[in-house]
């Protein structure tokens, strides 16, 4: 059980960075940005081709992130300068990126990274010198959890939480506040001398930088980049955001970014369980779509039920206090009855 959940947890923490990117565009900027499906592959492609060409994993990963930033900025310019509707700007960019990604990947739809040095193999050789694996395994072996290495988990928790804390900090800076207001009330923040166009471009850039970083890391984690690896990524990101928000709450920014990370991990675990139950890999997109629908609809149904229960309670309270027992009500009914009879 736990040994099955471990890889789901691991990849969940990596995908969480993508989900934080989607949170920035969807929730903070209120911009449904479909660039994600393309920029995820851009990050993976740039990092992979650089690794294959012998560049350092750190540099390759950062370059992938930078490419995503540029892609996001272009979507932002299409919308703000080109006055193209947000959904369409994202779709256009996503389609354009398909061709660009193929070019980046040297016209190869798949780049294997087996045997390449990656961020993970690099960190692992450092990690194994520390002897933490043995210590952790001796603790967790009791519950049947003894993965070959804890280094990926450790590195990813470090990276993902760095991104989380960066986001929390950024959204509270002067620029960050203006960015949030851009998604909340454009007229207002413009009247306080913020350039909402620039902020939208910046926000989408940062959002897609996160997405591309996640793509670059997933490529290194899975040991390949594939031109189709971004299909449906936006829905996965959205699923993570919505599940996380519904389960863990949105009281503050810090809480919400944590919730989004939690949502990404839970999504991976649900998918892992679905595969375990015998669903095919091809079914996963349908399951994802259904998860999003459930996460969107269920809270509303629950709220409706709660509201009905509350009203029912109120009504019975009301009856108790005002009717002062059934006799009086009965009297009234009787008197009207007798009235009608006498007529």
């Amino acid at each position, binding site marked *: 059980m736990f040994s099955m959940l471990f890889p789901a947890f691991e990849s969940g923490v990596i995908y969480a960075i993508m989900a934080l990117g989607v949170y920035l565009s969807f929730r903070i900027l209120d911009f449904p940005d479909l660039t994600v499906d393309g920029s995820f592959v851009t990050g993976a492609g740039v990092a992979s081709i650089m690794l294959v060409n012998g560049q350092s994993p750190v540099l390759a990963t950062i370059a992938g992130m930078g490419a995503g930033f540029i892609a996001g900025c272009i979507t932002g310019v299409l919308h703000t300068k080109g006055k193209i509707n947000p959904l369409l700007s994202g779709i256009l960019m996503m389609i354009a990126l398909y061709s660009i990604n193929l070019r980046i990947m040297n016209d190869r739809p798949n780049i294997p990274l087996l045997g390449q040095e990656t961020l993970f193999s690099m960190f692992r050789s450092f990690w194994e010198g520390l002897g933490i694996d043995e210590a952790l395994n001796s603790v967790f072996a009791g519950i049947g959890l003894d993965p070959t290495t804890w280094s990926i988990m450790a590195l990813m928790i470090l990276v993902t939480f760095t991104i989380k804390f960066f986001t929390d900090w950024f959204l509270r800076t002067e620029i960050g506040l203006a960015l949030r207001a851009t998604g*909340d009330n454009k007229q207002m923040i413009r009247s306080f*001398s913020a*350039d909402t166009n620039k902020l939208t471009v910046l926000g989408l850039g940062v959002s897609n930088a996160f997405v591309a970083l996640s793509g670059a890391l997933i490529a290194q984690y899975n040991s390949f980049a594939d031109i189709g690896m971004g299909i449906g990524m936006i829905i996965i990101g959205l699923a993570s955001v919505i599940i996380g928000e519904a389960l863990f709450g949105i009281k503050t920014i810090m809480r919400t970014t944590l919730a989004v990370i939690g949502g990404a991990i839970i999504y991976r675990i649900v998918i892992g369980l679905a595969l375990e139950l015998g669903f095919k890999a091809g079914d996963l997109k349908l399951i994802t779509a259904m998860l999003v629908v459930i996460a969107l609809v269920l809270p509303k149904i629950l709220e409706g039920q709660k509201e009905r229960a509350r009203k029912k309670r109120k009504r019975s309270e009301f009856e108790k206090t005002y009717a002062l027992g059934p006799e009086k009500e009965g009297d009234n009914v009787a008197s009207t009855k007798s009235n009608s009879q006498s007529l």
Partner: protein
Amino acid sequence: MLQLNQIHKVFNEGTLDEKIALSHINHALDPGDFVTVIGSNGAGKSTLMNVISGVLSPDVGEVVIEGKNVTNLPEHKRAAFIGRVFQNPLAGTAPSMTIEENMAMAYARNKKRGFRAGVTKKLKGFFKESLATLHLGLEDRLNAKVGMLSGGERQALSLLMATFTEPKILLLDEHTAALDPSRAELITTLTKDIVQQHQLTTLMVTHNMQQALDLGNRLIMMDKGQIILEVSGKEKEELTIEQLLQEFQRIRGSKMTSDRALLS
């Protein structure tokens, strides 16, 4: 302080819907002038405000603020020195952000935004003090989401946010119109106090004649894109609603007859 030279604005030119919203407006405000603007629906009052704030650009004419021609300056740049409160109480604040965050954004209006913390301890103290002047108890709710406030509270906050950085020009477009009478009264009083305290050069559009007479040192009446009446100083103080209405009938009537004369 504010100069409007030959402002002309036409909507949908060359179509059946062509509408001359502003017709060769010339007007100048001195520092500290508080002008109330009245006029019937469609007279061009909001258009005039939008031309001054840069939401709309005039077809002809220029807007000059403190000797600087700002006609081609985009809205968000002009906003550094123009404060605005809108008719809709929801328009002036960001609902999903807290009171202190909203105030921090307003506070940053005439500064370059950077990667410093938006809300600092020092600012919080200042925000608390400013909020206390509203007497609405908002100073104890710095961390409340603005979306939770009532329309009147939001409008009071908007007014404070628009003014506490002392903008060169304050534009109020029917900012009490969407409130119930007692809230409107409150916002009107606050407006009077704040404008006086900071000596703000102000243009206030209102449909409430009494308000237009009570507030400010000058009054202009607009009709069909033109300023048809202007009173100031002692003359304004002595003006009554009846006189104002009579004046309106007189000018409009004479215009109508001259229009008729032109047509025949």
